[in-house]
């Protein structure tokens, strides 16, 4: 493998891995903040328990997101120094703003929230969590602003040295691609958070039925019971899970509707800004307006002869792209010569690019990735929304059905929105190739700003170094994923009492002690 290929794998793996934690942090964080607010406003015990339990899982996941996010900040410079030099004047700004306006807020206030139980007044303590949650949303906004500039470069003009110079930061911050992608990602994160609640709450309600704590009367209504000998498995416990489940189901459905609307806007922007990506999403070789539901052929191929479309829905593609039925979309065959005309056939003949100088440029992205990435994202998202509706219907009498199979399905369903999120990102990033900064041929102004991925890699870095980081980070990531899942499973099985030692009677500290001046046992400690 050559340097560029290893560098791309290295970046892809570390970024996709980071993005396993991110949507759960964003989605679940907001939901925990809502629970905490409900507790402060209503004073009901079940909301306190929800906050503590889901908050614990939130933190277990949060830290791995932070730890792997650090890598992102460094690797633009480490492996992609030519890219960093090229885009520095515009791309660095949102990263710096993310640090200043988002990360400080998120990290400082999350620390205050975690250790603030019993030390701060209730309202102030709640505000700390909201600050942390807002911090993670703002951080998502800034990183997507940076990413969207690579998809749709705006607010710049070319400087004397051939590099873009920022002329309009407002244009960068309100880039239409960024606004669509940010809202899309946040809704996608809510789907992840919603399904996470749904699956785990389902498991606990099922467990309560299985253990004979909750029973069902002849009309199917739940009769809530309690187990005296197990901490936390009382009547309030039932309220915790049924509320979590229904809350999660609603959030997942709302999230999905949001992704549909914002995804549609994104599709239309993509058609305008990156027509090749749209065509590759469809494996559409020739112009037409049919949306293919299933295509078969040689997956690795970028040659149209290797792809056969089996099922098509006429007209839909044109609607997705432009909002009008039946409008013809340009296919790969028509677009390729246009790209070659505009951007040339080879990497510039510059010593900087080493062996890669003069290499042929392939303008068609890897079609099976874009084609299936697109379908997996939409399909799995739809399944989750349907699951939310079914869950609301099945739990209308106050508990879940006794079926073990359904319980397992609900738990497995947690994975679906993660996969949809990942598929969506892989599609949007791989679909941009061969560009790291994609030119927008149909949009005026920014067409001249683009950069080939091949030309972006660090000239001084060796394949060995990249392999070293790929292998070392990859194996540590692998182990940490096992550890995170182990902890999540362990705390999930423990139920609410796992996050509230006071229910077990281990810790008699008064959690709501308002003055916090006493030298007593900490209500939270590492």
């Amino acid at each position, binding site marked *: 493998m050559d340097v560029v290929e290893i560098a791309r794998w290295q970046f892809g793996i570390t970024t996709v891995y980071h993005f396993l934690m991110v949507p759960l942090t964003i989605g679940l964080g907001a939901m925990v903040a809502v629970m905490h607010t409900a507790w402060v406003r209503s004073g009901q015990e079940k909301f306190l328990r929800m906050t503590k339990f889901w908050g614990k899982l939130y*933190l277990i996941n949060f*830290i*791995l997101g*932070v*730890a792997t996010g*650090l*890598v992102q*900040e*460094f690797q*633009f*410079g*480490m492996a992609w*120094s030519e890219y960093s030099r090229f885009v*520095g004047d515009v791309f*660095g*700004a949102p*990263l710096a703003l993310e*640090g*200043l306006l988002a990360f*400080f*807020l998120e*990290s*400082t*206030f999350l*620390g*205050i929230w975690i250790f*603030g139980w019993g030390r701060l007044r209730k309202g102030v303590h709640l505000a700390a969590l909201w600050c942390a949650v807002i911090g993670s949303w703002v951080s998502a906004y800034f990183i997507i602003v940076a990413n969207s500039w690579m998809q749709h470069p705006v607010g710049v003009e070319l*400087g004397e040295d051939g590099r873009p*110079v*920022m002329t309009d*930061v407002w244009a960068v911050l309100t880039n239409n691609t960024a606004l669509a992608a940010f809202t899309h990602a946040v809704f996608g994160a809510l789907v992840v958070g919603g399904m996470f609640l749904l699956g785990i709450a389902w498991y606990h309600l099922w*467990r309560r039925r*299985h*253990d004979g*704590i909750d029973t069902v009367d002849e009309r199917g209504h739940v009769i809530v019971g309690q187990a005296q000998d*197990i901490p936390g*498995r009382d009547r309030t*416990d039932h309220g915790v899970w049924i509320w979590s489940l229904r809350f999660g189901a609603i959030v997942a459905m709302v999230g999905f509707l949001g992704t549909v609307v914002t995804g549609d806007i994104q599709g239309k922007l993509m058609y305008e800004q990156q027509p090749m990506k749209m065509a590759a999403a469809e494996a559409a070789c020739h112009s037409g307006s049919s949306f293919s539901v299933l295509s078969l052929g040689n997956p690795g191929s970028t040659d149209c002869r290797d792809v056969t479309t089996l099922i098509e829905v006429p007209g839909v593609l044109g609607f997705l792209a432009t909002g009008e039925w039946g409008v013809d979309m340009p296919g790969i065959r028509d677009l390729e010569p246009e790209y070659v005309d505009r951007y040339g056939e080879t990497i510039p003949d510059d010593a900087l690019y080493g062996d890669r100088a003069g290499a042929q440029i392939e303008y068609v992205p890897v079609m099976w990735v874009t084609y299936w990435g697109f379908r997996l994202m939409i399909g799995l998202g739809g399944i989750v929304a349907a699951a939310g509706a079914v869950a609301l219907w099945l739990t209308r009498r106050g508990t879940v059905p006794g079926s073990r199979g359904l319980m397992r399905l609900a738990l497995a369903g947690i994975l679906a929105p993660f996969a949809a999120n990942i598929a969506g990102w892989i599609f949007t990033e791989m679909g941009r190739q061969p560009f790291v900064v994609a030119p927008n041929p149909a949009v005026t102004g920014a067409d001249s700003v683009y950069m080939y991925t091949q030309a972006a890699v*660090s000239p001084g870095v*060796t394949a060995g*170094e*990249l392999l070293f980081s790929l292998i070392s*980070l990859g194996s*540590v990531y692998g182990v940490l994923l096992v*550890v995170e899942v182990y902890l999540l499973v*362990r*705390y999930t*099985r*423990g*139920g609410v009492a*796992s996050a509230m*030692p006071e229910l*077990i009677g*281990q*810790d008699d500290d008064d959690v709501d002690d308002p003055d916090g001046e006493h030298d007593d*046992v*900490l*209500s939270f*400690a*590492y």
Partner: protein
Amino acid sequence: MEPLAIIWFVAIALLWTGYLLLEGFDLGVGMHMIFSTRSERDRRVMLNTIGPVWDGNEVWLITAVAALFAAFSPWYAALLSALYVPLTLALLGLILRAVGIEYRGKVGTRVWATFWTYMIGLGSAAVAFFIGALLALTSIGLPIDGNGDRVGGPFAWLSWPALVGGLAVVGFALAHSATFLALKADGPVRRRASGFAVRWAPLCLLPLLVWIAMVQFEHGAGPAGWTVALLAVVSGGVGWAQARAGREGLAFTGYAGTGLFGLAAIFLAMFPVLLPSTIDSAFDITVQSAAHSTYTLGVLTVITVVALPVILCYQAWSYWVFRHRVTPGMIPEPHVILPAILRAEDAGRQV
């Protein structure tokens, strides 16, 4: 020279200084956890002195690196790509330390806690050492060519300055955190940390002083640089005297002053060079050659001027909220997790 570019050089110097002073004690506490005690309770006392604030402190690093990218991308690109291997090790350290702090108490077994203690300690040491090496190399030089790319392979950075800088930050973190622990903890941890701050801290601060001197000679620093360097030495001396006298607050301030004046002396001496080339001084990356457009720097300046005071306020508030000493009596029992399952055979025993 563009005044905004100078402002951003100063801003980046301040961000690195903020990182060194704040994370300095976090990293040091992590290292102390390995060797200063064998008691599990004492380790938890140590960890909880930094518990509420370490994550916020780490953001100073993220922002410092992002600011390099935002204001001087040729500096960011050259420095980070040249240090590919050491920065990978620093990142591994950052990851394992962060995860270790959060996960250490999540399972109440001895083996689990010991494993994460080592991850926190070794991770902290790796971060301190390699970030120190990075700062030393950017102040003293790397073999970079006209494009800013490293010449000489993956280990071309491995040099005396890298070693001195690495030891300087490790040593500073150990000394700084000893006075921090003496100030923030109580019981055996406080006693041992006070002892360390008297007995070993002067030795720990030595590499930092060597690094400061190296930079002054390398760049032919004027009287201003030497004056600030002298202040670093004086501050360390005052800190040591206060540590001997048992005045913990002043000892902490004194050692912190060594870090503060030390980095100030270093950045003062290297200005306006950001990264000297050891191949040819014509290849040096400087404030002039690397600065971004006036427009970009202006935007960054406006936002920073508004945001930074707010950040400093709420970070200071978080220190105020958690200003109390952590005593052994405050540490709760290890967390026991019972599965919330009635009919499972293992109910009642820990899983």
